[in-house]
């Protein structure tokens, strides 16, 4: 039986059942009225996750996260974050999100999908090296965060060497 909203004829989507002073208080509201009443907050929703959803969440956790192509392996930016901010996190995001980015880029650039303009003269443009530098800087930053200063210093030397090799 589809429950109707307490305040109107639309189907109720948000259900709140509370025990107040030993008495059961039920509230059933549609999206609109729930928003009005401030009941569509995540906290409210979490308390009342439908059972089938709870089960499927549990199953997902058990099977372990498969390799997520929606997160950049270098900077950790997720596709969802990009969709919100419209900014990518690092040069490697262009590789990781290539599939998702391509239609977006073509739309933004009147069908253009490949660079047709100038290129840097120097080997600083060498993509292999750029990727290495990115990775090493990330590891160096993590080493500093983890207070492994010896590793950080070592990485700094390697980075300098790599950059000077230009």
């Amino acid at each position, binding site marked *: 039986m589809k429950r109707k909203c307490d305040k109107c004829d639309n189907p109720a989507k948000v259900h709140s059942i509370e025990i107040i002073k030993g008495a059961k208080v039920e509230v059933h509201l549609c999206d609109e009225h729930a928003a009005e009443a401030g009941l569509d907050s995540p906290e409210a929703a979490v308390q009342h996750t439908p059972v089938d959803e709870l089960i499927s969440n549990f199953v997902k956790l058990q099977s372990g996260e498969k390799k997520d192509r929606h997160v950049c392996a270098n900077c950790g930016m997720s596709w969802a974050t990009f969709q919100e901010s419209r900014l990518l*996190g690092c040069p490697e995001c*262009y590789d990781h999100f290539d599939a998702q980015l391509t239609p977006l*880029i073509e739309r933004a650039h009147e069908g*253009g999908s*490949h660079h*047709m303009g100038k290129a840097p003269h120097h080997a600083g443009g060498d993509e292999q090296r750029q990727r290495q530098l990115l990775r090493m800087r990330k590891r160096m*930053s993590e080493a500093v965060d983890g207070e492994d200063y010896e590793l950080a210093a070592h990485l700094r030397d390697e980075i300098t060497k790599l950059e000077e090799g230009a």
Partner: protein
Amino acid sequence: MSLRQITDHAGEWLRGSGPQSDIVISSRVRLARNLAGYPFVNRADETQLREVHQRCRQQITDAGLVSEIIWVNLRGSDPLDRQLLVERHLISRQHARSKGSAPAVAICPDETFSIMINEEDHLRIQVLRSGMQLREAFDHVNRVDDALEERLPFAYSRKFGYLTACPTNVGTGIRVSVMLHLPALKMTGEIEKVKRATRDMHLAVRGMFGEGSDAHGDLYQISNQSTLGRSEAEILADFQSTVVPQIIAYEQQARNALMRQRPAVLEDKIWRAWALLTNARMIGSDEVLSLLSHVRLGINLGRIQTVDISVVNELLLLTQSAHLQRYVGSELDQAARREARASLIRKRLLPT
């Protein structure tokens, strides 16, 4: 050289007249670049941003682009100075408000080029010229880019070109724009049609201060939107040979039409603006831009002959909040600014 020195006189691009300057106020070309091997600004940590800042500062100085570079650390700078730089189009509003680490800007003394550091990208190189001088601005910005590229490794891929934080800038990273004064198109009611047509051609139409600003004073910034799939030269050629000359022609036609068909309406608008500006004792900045627009038109059409166009161009800048306060020499609240503004205008428009 210090920030004070550039703020004491208006930049070349505003004082100079340049070609077609009755309608084209200025031309601008900017390039977006990021250093290879670093996350983009929005994802980099403080150490990395400071490193980017330091490296850029070192290499920009060592590149010897001009005899002296003015370097401004925006963190810890006077808010009035930052506002000044925004008014002068040397930094974006976003950059002035930056809460991030190590935002900065490098400016050459005559303000023809400036480089924002750690705005949306690590580097944003821009060149400003008065009037219609896109080709000159383009050549200049490329020279700066080439000189820096000798010393700084830029993030680049063969497929996507110069890599930028926002995919809408990727590839050439080039933004070509002109600022146009279109009062007649506004008066004849055709401006909306022109805006729509321009947007249909994949160009952006914005107000005086770019993204999110209104078209006060009948000033419009037109720029390209697409940066990938064409070379820099093609983007420039498409921009400057198609839509822009057309808009300029439309404005010219609208001016001629007004002079022929409704001369009294036109004159009335011009002289009312003149009357207000030369007599008001208190005036707000929005109103001033609107009135200066009509006076500017009046000078272009030869109706007002007692004042040179460069005076009006300078007033467009000096009547803005931070410039006004610098000119007067102290911070002013809104009421005081309204008074100071009116006083400055009367002084400049009426030769003693």
